[in-house]
């Protein structure tokens, strides 16, 4: 019980003083996860929508594969990216290992299937409602893709948020490819893991609380925007 109250006061102290180390860690966490989410959305939204409405051989298989990839273990993704980016790996020449870029790459791989799989579900349902009308208006499945993504935007926000939750909370992948280097690749989750193993539970719990609040804040803000938009557009 003592640990808990101590950690809370430690967290507040760090927050109120805008502790520069803490701000750096929080900032890098947001940067990595946001960048990963942007790239994963650019890939995942059209891919999921295409698998939902284009008819091609192996379409069902793709859908099943996507659903399975939602559960990719972060450490495995981290390991694969690690092997790819290490000096002797195929992408070793770029010297990206232990950099924020490497962390973004790992998170993109982790999150894209989540966004794509949830998008596929949303767009498949929407296509049932829209197909006759859109084809009547002169659209083919290809030109219908952007229309469906735009019209499904309120539901797709949830897919993107699910991806963000995954990216900001995972520790395995960023730990392996980032290495938790102070001032370079240290993010909230890796910092928490480190503080726990060092025995500094107070700081770890404090960081955890901040992570929770950030996640809550972002989800709350997106929810409010979404609700307002739905009220306007029905």
């Amino acid at each position, binding site marked *: 019980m003592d640990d808990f109250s101590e950690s809370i006061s430690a967290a507040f102290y760090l927050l109120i003083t805008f502790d520069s180390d803490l701000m750096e860690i929080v900032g890098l966490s947001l940067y990595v996860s946001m960048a990963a989410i942007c790239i994963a959305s650019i890939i995942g939204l059209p891919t999921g929508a295409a698998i939902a409405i284009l008819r091609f051989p192996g379409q069902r298989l793709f859908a099943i594969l996507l659903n399975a990839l939602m559960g990719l273990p972060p450490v495995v993704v981290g390991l694969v990216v690690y092997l790819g980016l290490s000096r002797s790996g195929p992408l070793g020449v770029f010297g990206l290992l232990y950099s924020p870029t490497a962390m973004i790459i790992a998170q993109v791989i982790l999150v894209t299937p989540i966004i794509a799989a949830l998008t596929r579900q949303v767009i498949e349902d929407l296509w049932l409602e829209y197909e006759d009308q859109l084809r009547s*208006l*002169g659209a083919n499945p290809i030109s219908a893709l952007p229309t469906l993504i735009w019209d499904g935007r309120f539901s797709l926000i949830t897919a993107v948020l699910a991806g963000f939750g995954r990216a900001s909370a995972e520790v395995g992948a960023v730990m392996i490819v980032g290495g938790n280097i102070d001032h370079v690749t240290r993010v909230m989750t890796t910092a928490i893991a480190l503080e726990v193993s060092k025995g500094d539970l107070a700081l770890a719990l404090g960081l955890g609380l901040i992570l929770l609040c950030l996640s809550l804040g972002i989800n709350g803000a997106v929810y409010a925007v979404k609700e307002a938009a739905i009220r306007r557009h029905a």
Partner: protein
Amino acid sequence: MNYSSPILPLKLEDVSFQAGGKRLIKELNCEFGPGPRSVIIGPNGAGKSLFLKICHGLIKPHTGSVRWNDPNDASARRYQAMVFQRPVMLRRSVSANIHYPLKLRKIPKAERIILVEEALNISGISRLRDHPARVLSFGEQQKLALARAWALKPQVLFLDEPTASLDPAATHTVEEIIHAIHKQGTKIIMTTHDLAQAKRIADEVLFMFRGRLLERAPANKFFEQPENDLAQSFVKGELLWQRMGKAHQKHKYSEMTK
């Protein structure tokens, strides 16, 4: 847009369609030329909507052929439009909904703006132009659907029970818009199960029952004295399935008591 190549007449030959082992459209033959407003009537489940969708190319028949005069499929598609019983509105403004199919047809923006403006005016919804389309009432949505079709300047407009869920006032406006579209030279092919509406709109009537086209006649002739006896009872307001069903039901009962 010009009508350099007329897409009509539309010819259906031996068209059949089945789903779940049931034949829903049976060996249908007919031809639509430009001009008269054709209204397809018949009870629920007669296959009217299916028939329209097959004509419009949304559903492929299992046998038979649907042929437009214009052998170029793309231009035949370009010059037809359809208004559904419950039209789907895109999640954007009223005017953006009218812009959408014009953009798909690659009509230049300057021309698009004029067409959208005209369409908004003729359907009487210009005051709603910036409203999100999905929050409109049913009646307003149906007017928007007609405006959307009107802006395409189609040679053929299919309407599937366009007033089925509307009140009399909205029905009246929708019918006026349909007349205005017809006056422009657009061929109207429409389904309804509202006899009074068929009388108001139809130049010719096609009577469908259980997937077959049983009679086709000029409107005044049809409503005075239909040749087909099922059509006669339908015009008189009798319930067809009761008539048709007696023999059928007897059979069913005997099956059940076995």
